């Protein structure tokens, strides 16, 4: 499976879900792949998200492109990563008159995006989920799910490794080496091995920046800029499970509008602001309080639930500096070839979300293969992934 010794060598910088899915995709297309990650795999944004397998309903009204991407990828991930999801569906609940007035547009937008949606009346919603706010007006059931935020992406790394990719955690990219001669072209990555202290170069025919919210820092090593805006949000995990389904507030996208049940805990998310540095995230007290108050508007018992953890995660949103909250930035993803800026052999994939990791990898792999003159079709839509435990085999 792994590329022959003459196949082009691609180095991926960044061991989050996108990097893992890209390693998997490129190895299946016959390339040689090395992935470097400065810490543990999935230690950046990937592992910190609330664990929602999106069906796209959240974006159906305002961001149709993201909604369609989500439902397509939702279906694919269920097929290629069986066992990595709680197949529990999601319920969007309208609590206020204003929410209820939004329901027809929401429901129609789901159907128009290809998202299976079912209208659920107040009485039925309370039978399905007895802990919901009894004031609720109506609800819509959609195929959301709970994913294991670390182990699902880890299956891409496990499968890539079994197929011949070299995965190097605790290996930090500290510089790009450039080709001698006219024009600027990346020739490899200089890395620091944190286990041995060794500093060495990994030669590459092409380097992919899959740094998520760290993409700007990695791009700077190659002397280019990418319009990635780290947009953190606060998440709150409480002890106890209050719903079977993922509970979403049926309203225009806002703060504290989701409760993701996961094992015996519930994760409430999330706020959104803009930050400069994903290495210095804060957990503001007022954001934590808002998560609990907004979550308890849907499930009143959350107001008195024991808090297990509070933390922040930085989304990698594509946009220009000058946006105010991050909500207005698209949740879709983008692959940047930096050749037009004068740097050859360097590509950035960023934006997106956990649910679309495979699609992001496919888009990036298409760009990589085109640049390297490789003709090979993407196989990741059908390729069933190895279990996460295979990574440690």
């Amino acid at each position, binding site marked *: 499976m792994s590329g022959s010794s003459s196949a082009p060598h691609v180095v991926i910088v960044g061991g989050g879900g996108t990097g893992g899915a890209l390693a998997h995709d490129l190895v299946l297309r016959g390339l040689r792949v090395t992935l470097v990650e400065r*810490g*543990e*795999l*999935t*230690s950046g944004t990937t*592992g*910190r998200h609330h*664990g929602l397998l999106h069906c796209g309903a959240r974006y159906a009204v305002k961001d149709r492109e993201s909604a369609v991407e989500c439902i397509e990828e939702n279906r694919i991930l269920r097929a290629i990563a069986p*066992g990595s*999801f*709680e*197949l*529990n*569906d999601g319920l969007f609940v309208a609590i206020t008159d204003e929410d209820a007035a939004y329901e027809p547009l929401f429901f129609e937008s789901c159907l128009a995006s290809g998202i299976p949606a079912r209208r659920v009346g107040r009485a039925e919603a309370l039978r*399905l*989920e*007895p802990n919901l706010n009894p004031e609720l007006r109506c609800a819509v*059931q959609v195929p959301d799910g*709970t994913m*294991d*935020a*670390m*182990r699902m992406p880890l299956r891409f790394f496990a499968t890539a490794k079994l197929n011949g990719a070299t995965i190097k955690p*605790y290996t*930090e990219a500290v510089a790009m080496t450039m080709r001698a001669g006219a024009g600027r072209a990346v020739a490899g990555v200089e890395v620091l091995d*944190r*286990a*041995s*202290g060794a500093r060495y170069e990994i030669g590459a025919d092409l380097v992919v920046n899959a740094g998520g919210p760290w993409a700007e820092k990695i791009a700077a090593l190659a002397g280019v800029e990418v319009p990635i805006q780290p947009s953190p949000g606060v*998440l709150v*995990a409480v002890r106890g499970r209050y*719903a*079977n389904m993922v509970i979403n507030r049926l309203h225009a996208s806002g703060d504290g509008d989701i409760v993701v049940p*996961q*094992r*015996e*805990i519930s*994760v409430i998310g999330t706020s959104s*602001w*803009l*930050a*400069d*540095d994903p*290495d*210095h*995230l*804060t*957990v*503001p*007290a*007022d954001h934590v309080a808002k998560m609990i108050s907004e979550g308890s508007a849907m499930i009143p018992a959350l107001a008195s639930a024991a808090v*297990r*953890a*509070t*933390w922040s*995660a930085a989304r990698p949103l594509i946009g220009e500096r000058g946006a105010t909250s991050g909500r207005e930035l698209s949740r879709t993803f983008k692959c940047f070839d930096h050749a037009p800026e004068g740097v050859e052999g360097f590509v950035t994939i960023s934006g997106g979300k956990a649910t679309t990791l495979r699609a992001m990898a496919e888009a990036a792999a298409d760009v990589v293969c085109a640049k390297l003159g490789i003709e090979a079709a993407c196989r990741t839509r059908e390729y069933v992934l190895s279990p*996460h*435990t295979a990574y*440690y*085999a």
Partner: protein
Amino acid sequence: MSAGIDPARDTHATEGTGVPIRFRVYRRKAGDRAGHFDEFALEVAPDTTVLDALVAIRTRLDPTLMLRHSCFHASCGTCGMRVNDAEVMACVTKVLDLGTPRVKVEPIANGALLGDLATDMVDFYARLAAIGRALVRNSEWLPSSELPPGIEAHNRYESCIECGLCLSACPVVATDARYLGPAALAAAERAIGEPRGLDPGFILNLIDDPQGAWRCHAAFECTEACPSEVDPAGAIMALRRRAAGARLRSIIRRRT
């Protein structure tokens, strides 16, 4: 610092709070003959966790520090370690709750080390692999709720988060590398209770062994250490009852 957010509102701050803590952190790299401790000083806030502190140490004071982390809410199991000699998840252990001005941080015991605080989980998963444990189960939904149309049964992740804290705390694992250990035995008990395609007889045979359920000294350290309420010790006792019952039934069958 974050644009638009005042650091003074940061409930997980690691500087500028006026509550100084000295962290003694275990260090050992590949090739080192022995480990040692490095000291780092931080100021922490009421909600600052041991993991927040370690990430701040790596970001601001020593980029060579190796540690595992991912989810920050004790769901992934990666940041299990020994803090002040107790097995904990660093992400849900608040520094000030420890009540000590000096905090000692070490990797989990009884596993190979990648470096510093980062454990190589290969041994842990090798023990689990014997059981063939699956990731989700199909039981246990909120009993008060109905199932919506189109869903036959809600499924759930197993409670075990594969952190390795039970193996670290177990006094038998410390002295006997062949012992199956609490995580795998708890998985065996789950698999026998809800086989989902696995052969319960095969698993019962596997654990009814001097290196299986009978090797446990009933110290209950594993249940004490478990951050996810799996109760491996309770599972081991249940396996012994199952194994003894199966032996008794087989003796009765031979006599009749």
